[in-house]
């Protein structure tokens, strides 16, 4: 029984962490361009990374 006292909070905390991570990713626009993100991995960025055009909006 005593194991439940910390196992359940740990399980819920980890699940909640994943939920918060997803909501954060959604909010920060990481789901806006899934096709683009898949392709950008393959690009060699010679020059500095471009500033995000959305930066000013946040």
């Amino acid at each position, binding site marked *: *029984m005593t194991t*439940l006292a910390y196992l*359940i909070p740990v*399980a*819920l905390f980890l*699940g*909640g962490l*994943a*939920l918060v991570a*997803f*909501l954060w990713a*959604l*909010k920060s626009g990481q*789901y*806006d*361009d*899934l*096709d*683009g993100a898949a*392709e*950008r991995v*393959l*690009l060699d960025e010679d*020059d500095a990374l*471009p*500033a*995000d*055009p*959305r930066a*000013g*909006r946040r």
Partner: protein
Amino acid sequence: MSCCAPGAEVLGTPSATLPEGEELLLASRSLGNGERQVELAVPDVHCGACIHAVETALRRVEGVTGARVNLSTRRVAVRWREGLAPPPVAAALAAIGYPPHLFEDEAGRDRTLSELLRAVAVAGFAAGNVMLLSVSVWSGAEGATRDLFHWISALIALPALVFAGRIYYRSAFNALRHGRMNMDVPIAIGVSLAYAMSLYETLTHGAHAYFDASVSLLFFLLIGRTLDHVMRDRARAAVRGLSRLMPRGAVVLAADGGRDYRPVETIEPGMRLLIAAGERIPVDARVIAGTSDLDCALVTGESRPQPVEPGAAVRAGTLNLSGPLTLEAERPASASFLAEMVRMMEAAEGGRARYRRIAERVSALYAPVVHLTAFVTFLGWMAVDGDWHKAITVAIAVLIITCPCALGLAVPIVQVVAARRLFENGVMVKDGAGLERLAEADAVVFDKTGTLTLGRPRLVGAEALAPELHAIASALAAHSRHPLSEAIAEAAPRGVATPVFETVAEHPGLGLEGRMDGRLWRLGRAAWAAPTEAAEGEDGTVLAEDGVVRARFHFADALRPGAREAVATLARTVGPVTMLSGDAEPACRAVAAALGIADVAARLMPGDKVARLAAMAAGGRKVLMVGDGLNDAPALGAAHVSMAPATAADIGRNAADFVFLRDSLAAVPVARAIARRAGRLIRQNLALAIVYNVIAVPIAILGHVTPLVAAIAMSASSLLVIGNALRLAGGPGEAAAPVAPAPRRNTLSAPVTAR
């Protein structure tokens, strides 16, 4: 979607004019940190290499501070420092082969989608954790442990119910307030009652709590709703991404001779406008200087360009082809032809407004039946053993087991799969209801110019021309953007040396004139090119050498590829096919004869088309209207269901339920076939849901449904309808129907960089 995915290749043609300078500024917005941003549609971006090429090219443009491509929406956001003139980004993009265009922009980012996604995430988290705790309860947890698990479940389920469930509460409340029933009413009631009852069980140390049922129900239903939304959103985004055909503004000549680019809404009667060749006319106006030809195909359906001179009245939406014009605005944009069409379209709302979706019709019956059953169950148990706690528990179990989980998923999933199937065939569906109405259609009405035909002339009888003469004509024609010139240049004979002219001049409204070896060649209107020879009133196109006719050219509007087969298939599978056109009688007869359409009406005004459709509807017909022009827009709105090509006028595309992106008309029968199969699957799924209820409800009424049974029954029925819906994705197919790759239209137009 990768480069080679079907449907990726065409999203309409880029407009001939590139958005630059003032127009770009008008479309941009301030970011508040000293920068401006504009979003451009770049339909040709397909892969990682394209992203790199576009972003690199844009960042090299003077004044640009940042550029980012969104591959999913095929758009690029460009920023520049505020206060500077907009950098020449469109020219830079066109130069590397990605001509951009401005598009219809609506409320920016989609709030509903992110709300739905957040709700799915929260409901999923809650459903997963509550289910884990429930499994422990089912496998034998007792006493204090069971109570603890129930309490934790209640704590997890409450925020999920509030956050994810409010979408349903809101919708159910709205429906009830207007005295209607929808699917969300039984869902909202079932979920909240289940939660309330479980909470009571927990307080009284009971054995059966339905926390898992209420949250997993929400989770499944939200998935269906999100899928439905994503499908519609994707189609809308693709349609919005097509180029705007109507101008945002025009150059206004001030009294002191100054020039000022103004938005269309601020143009008032009496203002003088400068319209360059290749631009569309923004408001109804009168020509005061200049001569040119106007392409009226999109406005009136006339396939031949109309010459205009000072004094002529011109309509908003027509395209100025050959020479610059100075116009005097006669009416403001709010009273122009375009606005008139929008008003007619709203007035003509036809079967669409009266149509109720299958899911709505079912739920209007379903909800009262379910609630009545639960209530009768409650009364029955009260009568049988008088234990109100037991009676309520059983009644709520009935509500949970009948909750329209299968229904909520069955319809959207079939429609999502159908939309995917249509997308592969180059057709965008804007709404699930459109699919249901298309399956019902039993008559077809086509517009002619731009729908059955491509709306651009093609040279006929080119073989009969002497190759040398044709080569001379082609060399002259290459200097003009007039559609007839383009047709001559496109059909240029191969293997003949291209003659070189010393000088070439275009005379708007008349033709082209060039000098070669001291001889004067003219290509154009017969009365101008060879005044002495031309018969009175002769209107043909000729090539003349020093006033002597050397060759005559004849044109016909090219039929859309697949038009004949599509008309034949539709006549066989749907019903009578009619052609309604605003063009002249002979042109209509010729096209109708070539396609085998017997029922033809020519020279129709937009109002006449609507009247025809109304008459057909009054005769009990459910009409599928396919059209592209501004003049078709009211008819598209009035029809039971409507389709438009991607090249259609903006309001036509917005009015239509379906937009097909490729040139081939084969899209129409393909869409119809898919819609019918989808309709069949929806009915099957509804039947499955009913069978499930027939089996499950008696068990629930007899009081044998424990939370475990409810969880298994709900999941099983959902999986069953999803599996059935997915059959649409495979199976024999329309995909095999020959959809010829669309000939790239921009190969015909003059190089866009010329401007």
